[in-house]
């Protein structure tokens, strides 16, 4: 690292720049950044980029069914003559945003409950943590399936079903951090001068546990996208005509040997999205979490 970089900068900024430099040195992290940026852009603007926006809204063209990939339809067309590229681009919206929503919802609920458990201790802690433990006895996908079966299909129900098995991870993490910090001198001092419990929790404790939470969010997004696609593949997903990667793949299964393009491209989209966020998450963890630095 050059001396010029460090000259005249505050220690905090230096650390930041170092981290960014390190991130930039890691080729895989950069690939992750690029891929997840691409996927996020698809999620936000995919519908606008779609060459056949009418197909995204459910329009059909039964005269051009099952066309193999060509210039007009780079990913081919499906059983109703819809442009697969358009559907994949637009499908990013549900798949990625639902994945983000799951993790953010899980993070929000988990952080709140974890902080309360860690700070309050006693029975509150005991009950909340036993509740979180229960999640560990049932694989997330099975639990999500059970909840989705009870709630019925639909995007919101799907997000809730997955988030229900996501919060305990965050709760444990935050509780651990809060427990580790609640006896630190500045907290003890704050308590001594009569600062209220809620205020201590919100102003002093939470900001300090935010970093690991952010790292976990970034690490989890890829897996959440995978979970959303999995439920979509099983058939508990969005309602038609909304395109979603998992359900596109499920439909394509019936047509697989002849019309492979209907399956390959949505599948690749899931793979690329998950890979991108996983790489980005790994990179961010190395960047933000001091414990993993080597």
């Amino acid at each position, binding site marked *: 690292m050059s001396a010029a970089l460090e000259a005249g900068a505050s220690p905090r900024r230096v650390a930041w720049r170092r981290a960014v430099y390190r991130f930039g040195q890691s080729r*895989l992290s950069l690939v992750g950044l690029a891929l997840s940026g691409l996927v996020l852009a698809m999620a936000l603007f995919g519908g606008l980029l779609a060459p056949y926006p009418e197909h995204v809204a459910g329009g059909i063209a039964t005269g051009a069914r099952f066309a193999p990939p060509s210039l007009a339809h780079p990913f081919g067309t499906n059983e109703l003559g819809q442009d697969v590229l358009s559907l994949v681009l637009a499908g990013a919206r549900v798949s990625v945003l639902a994945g983000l929503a799951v993790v953010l919802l899980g993070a929000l609920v988990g952080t709140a409950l974890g902080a309360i458990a860690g700070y309050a201790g006693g029975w509150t802690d005991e009950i909340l943590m*036993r509740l979180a*433990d*229960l999640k*560990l*006895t*049932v*694989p*997330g*996908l*099975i*639990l999500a*399936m*059970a*909840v*989705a*079966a*009870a*709630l*019925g299909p639909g995007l919101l129900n799907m997000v809730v079903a997955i988030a229900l098995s996501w919060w305990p991870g965050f709760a444990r993490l935050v509780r651990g951090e809060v427990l580790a910090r609640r006896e630190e001198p500045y907290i003890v001092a704050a308590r001594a001068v009569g600062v209220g419990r809620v205020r201590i929790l919100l102003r002093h404790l939470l900001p300090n546990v935010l970093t690991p939470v952010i790292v976990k969010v970034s690490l989890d997004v*890829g897996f959440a996208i*995978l979970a959303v*696609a*999995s439920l979509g*593949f*099983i*058939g*508990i997903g969005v309602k038609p005509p909304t395109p979603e990667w998992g359900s596109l*793949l499920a439909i394509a*299964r019936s047509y*697989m*040997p002849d019309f*492979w393009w209907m*399956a390959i491209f949505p*599948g690749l989209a*899931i*793979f690329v999205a*998950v*890979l991108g966020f*996983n*790489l980005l998450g790994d990179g961010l963890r190395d960047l933000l979490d001091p414990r993993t630095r080597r």
Partner: protein
Amino acid sequence: MLGFVLRRIALTIPVLLGLTVLVFAIARLLPGDPVALAAGPNATPAEIEAYAREFGLDRPIPVQYWTYLTGLLSGDMGVSIFTRRPVAEDIAAYLPATLELVLAAMLLAVGLGLPAGLAAAVWRDRWPDTVSRVLALGAISMPRFFLGLLLQLGLAMALGWLPLGGRFPITEDPPPLVTGLLTLDALLAGDLRALGLALQHLLLPAVALSLSPLATIMRMMRASTLEVLSRDYVLTERALGLPEWQIIGKYVARNAVSATLTVIGLYFGWLLGGTVLVETVFDWPGLGLYATKSVVTQDFMPVIGVTLVIGTLFVAINLVVDILYGVVDPRVRVT
């Protein structure tokens, strides 16, 4: 030792009780009309009422929970709305297939993951390491169902080398039922042909299921090998001129046993969840396929039953791993 085992077993009781509470809460407390669902759609309002009375669904929730719990103790998991078959019977029929698939995937993951991880560590930063790293990254991000479809598309559909799905050729009579695991039953019967057929069917789903844990085991093995290799005694042995392969065989292999034990415990639950998608793709007649079919038809009791059984299995496996740990490492017994 016995005290330790008993204590461990006692500790799982509240966990299992909690599991029943969780399952019951999903069944009864979420919006949706369990009575109408359970009575079936052709039921008239009068029939629904009669059903509610018969199954005690008109009574207070705690009473209902008690009834449900006592029902479970006598092996009653309710009845499927669709088939009207007892859920417990169905689960008993499907469980062996799932166990066989999960065990096969675990075997693949451990059997390939450990040597690959070892190789990656020994040739650190050389090509085996790089290749294993890239593969691991891909494997973890690969949706199992997509991988399954690709394997099917290539090896079963285009090349025709392996069966598309299922557990055994349908025109053949499976080996006599002993364990329910076809490969094992074939071995027990000494029927090598049946074993071959069962393995042909098992291969693709097991590969699709094993990839992700394989990658993780490989990376963990690499890390622990590197750690051992950097320890003082290894350096000493090396300085003493002991051949490299002996060092690795002597120290790393032992280290791997305890690491693997943890990993199996951790991943068993994961595989039980992951098998759902793989079974769906390969028409593997196990719990996962049963659960997905039931979810799609909103047939509720089977889904709840599968959740409960898989949860219980997972708790049981953790218990076994814990106890084995106690055997391997006596220090654990204190806690």
